[in-house]
């Protein structure tokens, strides 16, 4: 079977999925930066991407392909040079509380306790709420990520996984409609990473799968396990969307079981083929010498 046919089979729509209202609409987005010398550097070019409400989408690609730049355009941290991003019907002009962000390097404020890190975000986004309501909201979100007993610790006293759970609790606490995660688990070891995936899906599930999650990653297994669709970027500069691969694995997914499903292996191969050119030294033209 050719890879193209394979994708066609996987693209068979599942009931209900196509009727999702649009959450994020990226329209003809091109992002260029002024280069340090003269001239401009184009990071991504002519990106069109529509993401439904409650969908989990991973953006995958090689380092420097502009995945984070695209993410920053959705978050409002970076302004597109051309085109626009629409989130829930509104044009993105800057960062906003409707989009919660989890940064790659946690970005917790090291002088504030776990509790305060979440509280200050809640306080900034919901100034109308009473102190008691805000405190309850923070406590509830910290309990969801099992960090309530560590609420008085400073970020420096936490492990990487705990830091990232704090950052996720912070993003969830402001109750955004969209959650943007920029390589959130990149710095974690494989075991911690696996439990963080479950943690993230649990939170998404508890919220009736209503939050749209966009995640940048370069981990193929992670992308398949979490997402409904995987957006594969071409190499930069002027990166474009190379292909969008649907992941039609049933939910809830079991990390141990899904890897044996034929669909999983097909998708995994497809993504590997898209991302990696050479699979052994022989592909590099080097003869193996025992």
């Amino acid at each position, binding site marked *: 079977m050719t890879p193209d046919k394979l994708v066609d089979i996987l693209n068979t729509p599942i009931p209900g999925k196509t009727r999702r209202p649009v959450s994020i609409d990226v329209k003809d987005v091109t992002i260029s930066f002024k280069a340090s010398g003269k001239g401009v550097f184009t990071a991504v070019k002519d990106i069109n991407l529509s993401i439904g409400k409650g969908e989990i989408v991973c953006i995958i690609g090689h380092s420097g392909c502009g995945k984070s730049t695209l993410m920053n355009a959705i978050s409002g941290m970076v302004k597109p040079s051309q085109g626009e991003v629409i989130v829930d019907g509104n044009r993105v002009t800057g960062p906003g509380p409707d989009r*919660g962000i989890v*940064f790659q*390097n946690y*970005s917790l404020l090291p002088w504030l306790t776990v509790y305060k890190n979440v509280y200050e975000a809640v306080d900034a986004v919901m100034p109308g709420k009473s102190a008691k309501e805000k405190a309850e909201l923070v406590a509830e979100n910290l309990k969801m990520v099992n960090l309530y007993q560590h609420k008085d610790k400073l970020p*420096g006293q936490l492990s990487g996984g705990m830091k990232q759970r704090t950052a996720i609790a912070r993003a969830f606490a402001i109750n955004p409609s969209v959650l943007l995660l920029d390589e959130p688990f990149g710095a974690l070891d494989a075991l911690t990473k696996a439990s963080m995936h479950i943690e993230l899906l649990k939170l998404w599930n508890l919220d009736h799968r209503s939050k749209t999650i966009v995640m940048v990653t370069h981990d193929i297994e992670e992308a398949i396990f979490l997402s409904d669709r995987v957006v594969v970027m071409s190499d930069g500069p002027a990166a474009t969307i190379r292909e969008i691969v649907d992941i039609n694995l049933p939910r809830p997914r079991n990390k141990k079981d899904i890897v044996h499903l034929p669909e999983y292996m097909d998708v995994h191969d497809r993504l590997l083929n898209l991302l990696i050119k050479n699979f052994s030294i022989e592909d590099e033209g080097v003869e193996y010498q025992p």
Partner: protein
Amino acid sequence: MKKIFSVSGALSIAYFIGSILLLLGLWSLVSAFTGQEIPGPAATWTVFYEMLQDPFYDYGPNDKGIGIQLWSSIKRVFSGFFIGSLVAIPLGLLMGASKTGMRLLNPLVQVLRPVSPLAWFPLGLLAFKASEGATVFIIAITSLWPTLINTAFGVSSIPQDFRNVGKAFGFSTWKYLTKILIPYALPHIITGLRLSIGIAWMVIVAGEMLSGGIGIGFFVWDSWNGLSLEKILSAILIIGIVGLLLDKLFNALQRFVAYEGK
């Protein structure tokens, strides 16, 4: 159980004693070479001990105990230091936070920073019509630079990550200042204050020599006029020890506000 006497603790005490002995040895040597013209440690100690017997006596304007002299110097240093910091910290925040502020103020700072405290003294006299005001003025104006520069540096070096947190969660300017910018810059500011108090303490002696009246600097000058080198050497020791204590104080403050490695 925690050991009270650790090897490294005992060793550092031994080194401290060694360093004192080294000082006393060199001092005795210099004293011997000058034929006791510069008094040795023993002669100085006698006078020093006598001074400490009644440090707070007050026999009129030109004859006060060392405690009173020292206390008035410390008060002066802190008022000058306080005024200087009050100017330096906001200006530093401004310089660090805005490129325009940096470009506008930096040349000014670079020109005024190396000016000797003594050069400012006549201006102080002119402005305040009194030597007291002039002394506080020169302390303020010479001690504010390290705080200013360190604050500006601290603020301008804030990592993009922390700024992004403020942006992503829509922090108000006030929240950004109090929860992100100032906590981040605080260790830098305290480092600046620590350098500043050191300079302020150095300037006080020169300032009080010019202004006269009361204070440790005046005491040194007065002892020179009274030809009591023992008193001058005692005063030097006191100035050194108080300077060390001030530094330790700010060092403790520095450790208190450090957020990393807690």
